């Protein structure tokens, strides 16, 4: 039945093309939307996950990494006092105003971090320069995707820009580190970041604690929260909280989910219509098979194999299209994460789509009147 089903499907090229286009379109849409959604989620917490550590300490009431408040100078030593804490890394993460070459104003998020002997963990993807180049005062790293927005030359290395009335030099260039808010990121030493943000020496917006033993995180959190101005949470919890805040709070999750659903519905309609019309066209032959003694299972497998063939080939075409589309989407400033989880989830959605689309045809085949072979 497999051979008969697939041969019949490939015999009618026009119908095959329209059905494949439907599945491919739906696959592309589902994969791209799921990829954008994943990128959105990953991006919202990228700073936290890449900075790492075991426990993040922040001002009480802080909900997300993007909106931290400056901590008092004593906070670091208070956290360090816990015997389980191996080291505490201060971070500043603030919005700063910048003046562009053409005179316009904009803003960017400056992330300041300590460069110590253990080596920096930020920024995590450099295409030009080295992290240690940021040790030089008033040096920053910008992303190559933000060069146009910041009105920097195509090769921005060595170029200068004005942040909060101070000239800074681009000493390194990152690749693919884009904020989902589309505000450019700038990485610098914490000293430079403090100067650009107007934060006094010894202060930070976040403290990242590396523990000797990760299992003592609850004890560190409890100790930190004894201070009325501080709150603390594990890195994972802070990342998840930030993701939820942006995904649920912004409504982006619902929008992307709806677009994905729409893609699936379009796919179901196109594939369902094609399978149904093909089943209708093949009714005399299917009735002949039934008259010859084909079982209900064999007749249903005719539709099943066609749906499976369309699903596999269409999904493969759709994946290729989605990979091509990824560049275009990323060019527009969005991050698309096509992880194995995203692809697997998308393929399961396509399987569901093709199964749903074949229900009408299955019912028609199973209720087929074999007696019509004599009409």
């Amino acid at each position: 039945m497999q051979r008969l089903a697939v041969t019949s499907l490939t015999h009618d090229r026009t119908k095959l093309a329209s059905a494949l286009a439907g599945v491919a379109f739906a696959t592309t849409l589902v994969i791209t939307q799921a990829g954008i959604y994943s990128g959105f989620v990953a991006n919202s917490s990228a700073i936290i996950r890449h900075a790492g550590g075991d426990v993040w300490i922040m001002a009480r009431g802080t909900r997300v990494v993007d909106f931290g408040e400056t901590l008092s100078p004593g906070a670091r030593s208070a956290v360090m006092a816990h015997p389980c804490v191996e080291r505490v890394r201060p971070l500043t993460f603030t919005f700063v105003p910048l003046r562009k070459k053409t005179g316009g104003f904009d803003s960017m998020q400056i992330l300041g971090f300590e460069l110590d002997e253990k080596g920096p963990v930020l920024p995590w993807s450099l295409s030009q320069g080295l992290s240690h180049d940021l040790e030089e005062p008033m040096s920053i790293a910008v992303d190559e995707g933000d060069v146009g927005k910041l009105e920097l030359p195509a090769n921005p290395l060595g170029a200068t820009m004005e942040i909060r009335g101070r000239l800074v030099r681009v000493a390194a260039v990152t690749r693919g580190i884009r904020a989902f808010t589309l505000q450019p990121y700038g990485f610098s030493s914490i000293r430079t970041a403090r100067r650009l943000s107007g934060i006094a020496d010894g202060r930070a917006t976040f403290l990242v604690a590396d523990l000797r033993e990760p299992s003592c995180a609850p004890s560190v959190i409890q100790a930190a929260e004894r201070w009325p101005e501080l709150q603390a949470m594990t890195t994972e919890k802070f990342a998840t909280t930030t993701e939820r805040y942006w995904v649920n709070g912004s409504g982006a999750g619902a929008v992307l989910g709806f677009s994905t659903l729409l893609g699936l519905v379009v796919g179901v309609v196109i594939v369902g219509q094609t399978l149904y019309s093909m089943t209708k066209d093949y009714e005399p032959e299917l009735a002949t098979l039934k008259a010859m003694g084909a079982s209900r299972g064999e007749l249903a497998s005719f539709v099943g194999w066609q749906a499976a063939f369309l699903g596999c080939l269409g999904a493969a075409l759709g994946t290729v299209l989605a990979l091509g589309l990824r560049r275009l989407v990323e060019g527009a400033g969005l991050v698309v994460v096509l992880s194995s989880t995203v692809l697997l989830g998308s393929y399961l959605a396509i399987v569901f789509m093709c199964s749903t689309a074949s229900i009408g045809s299955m019912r028609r085949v199973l209720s087929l009147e074999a007696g019509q072979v004599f009409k």
Partner: protein
Amino acid sequence: MSGPPVLRMVDVVKTFRSGALVTPVLHGISLEIPPGGLTLIMGPSGSGKTTLISLLTGLFRPSSGRVELCGAPISELPEADVARVRRARLGFVFQSYNLFPAMSAQDNVAVALQMSGLSWKCARSRAADALERVGLGHRLTHRPADLSGGEKQRVAIARALATHPTIIVGDEVTAALDGVTAFQIMDLLRTHVGPDTAVILVTHDRRLERFAERVIEMEDGRVRADRPSERPPQHMRAAS
């Protein structure tokens, strides 16, 4: 014709219902068809021929009465069991051929053989032999669209013959063919008649009587006449 009947109908009634409308089509038909002959079922349109053949082959269930196919009470068996009996015992030939347009002649026949349990490779090999026997050994790879009406019907006959069924059932198998081709097709179908096998054809064409041993004439849902053929096949005339 001899041996236990391959088909048996006892007091079969068939009515069709559409809402409140009840249409009686067959009225208490009883008949037996033994192996070893070609039987024609004739009659004007609306006489109940097609319904009769659909009941005989288990494609319809009677409203009342009993139908046996090669001893199996197909009017009482579950649908899946009836399908198994049909698969093992029947071969079909139709007026409009009912071939799979996407498949070659060889593959059309092979599908039926594969359904009977053969591997695809073996089924194709046997299909080639079957097509050779109906004179289409040179048309194996042709699709139905590339074949003439007579050739398509030969493929359909090869498909029906290939599984060595007990009974071949045909519906107006020559209606779309010219006279010479129609007789060639009938000659082919006669090759299936043997001591344990039978051919049953529904037709309007009285010229086909020369190929039949028996003629059942239907009228208004009843058997008007059940008689030997007026012009029996050559071997019977020679014997008599």
